[in-house]
């Protein structure tokens, strides 16, 4: 499965949710499908996208939050999975695109390429709902189930190690940050569900 096809398959579910993504291909591909003010792209600080999502989910229980993470980033903050599981916000769905590599720096293989199982690690950390999916239909179905279940979920989507030719977009980092903050400030309670 290509990550961009997976993103396209769930794009309509993201339109009205608070979305935090990691850097690199995930951010560039989601922007190529269509940026929205409720999307925030953490373009550095690998590992902290799920922590940001947790901070939003805990402080704004009226909003549904989707974190679009990656294997390289999750591996840099495995402890964060235990913190997610500890507070297990019911309004957070944690998607991990696992291409088994650090694509944006040349495709060096990560530990998931040698068998480390991120859904298994999340489950063992205490995340109540986990799944590994390998095709677009299964991915969309898993995301829908996680949203409907209203419990913390980590969905690992195995994707091909391919991405866009470049990662810099015309959306400045701070423009994105202040637009996103303004969205969260002004959106009516419940409107981002």
């Amino acid at each position, binding site marked *: 499965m290509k990550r961009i096809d997976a993103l396209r398959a769930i794009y309509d579910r993201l339109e009205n949710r608070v979305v*935090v993504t990691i850097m690199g291909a995930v951010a560039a591909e989601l922007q190529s499908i269509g940026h929205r003010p409720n999307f*925030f792209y*953490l*373009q*550095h*600080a690998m*590992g*902290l*996208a*799920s*922590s*940001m*999502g*947790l*901070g*939003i*989910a*805990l*402080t*704004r229980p009226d*909003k549904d939050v989707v974190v679009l993470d990656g294997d390289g980033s999750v591996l840099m*903050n495995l*402890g*964060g999975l*235990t*913190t997610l599981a*500890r*507070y297990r916000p019911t309004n957070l769905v944690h998607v991990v695109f696992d291409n088994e590599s650090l694509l944006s720096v040349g495709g060096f293989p990560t530990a998931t390429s040698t068998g480390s199982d991120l859904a298994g690690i999340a489950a063992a950390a205490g995340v109540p709902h986990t799944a590994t999916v390998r095709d677009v239909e299964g991915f969309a179905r898993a995301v829908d189930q996680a949203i409907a279940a209203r419990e913390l979920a980590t969905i690992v989507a195995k994707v091909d190690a391919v991405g866009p030719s470049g990662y810099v977009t015309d959306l400045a*980092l*701070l423009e994105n*940050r202040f637009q*996103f*903050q303004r969205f*969260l*400030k002004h959106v009516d309670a419940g409107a981002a569900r």
Partner: protein
Amino acid sequence: MPVSTTHSRLVYDALKACGIRLISALPETWLVHLIRMAEDDPEMTLVRLAKEEEGVGISAGAHLAGVPSAMLMQNHGFLASINGIVSCAQLYRIPLLMLISHRGEFGERDPWQTEGGAVTEDLLRTLRIPFSYLDDPARVSHRIRKAQTLAYSSNKPVALLLCRDLMWEE
């Protein structure tokens, strides 16, 4: 335990008075009362961390969502958080109120704390993070308020060093 409950209460009440409603923390000796106060306070969300750097992301999320927060950590936790501080809080202009227990200063008896204490202030300066000291109970409240004011006006991290003279009763 000779960690000052009275002075911990001063610090906690000052954080509440600044509107802090989320605290992330990783326990260390000097912080035990502060963490318990946060835990017992129904108005406060306490997030217990596995590693301090997570707190930078959690505070960034809380800030963008409109909720003021603070991080409680030891100076070794600050050392462990530096990438997050630079590549999340500074890059994205997040006001981050960090309360850092300043272990390893004069009076430190634990040999393992002494290296961290010797580099904390220089690292804060190198990172251009404005900081001050919480060492005098009479100044705790207004220093915390002023630190929070600067964090919000500058949209940048600020630090307060929790000092032995305030936190420890010998």
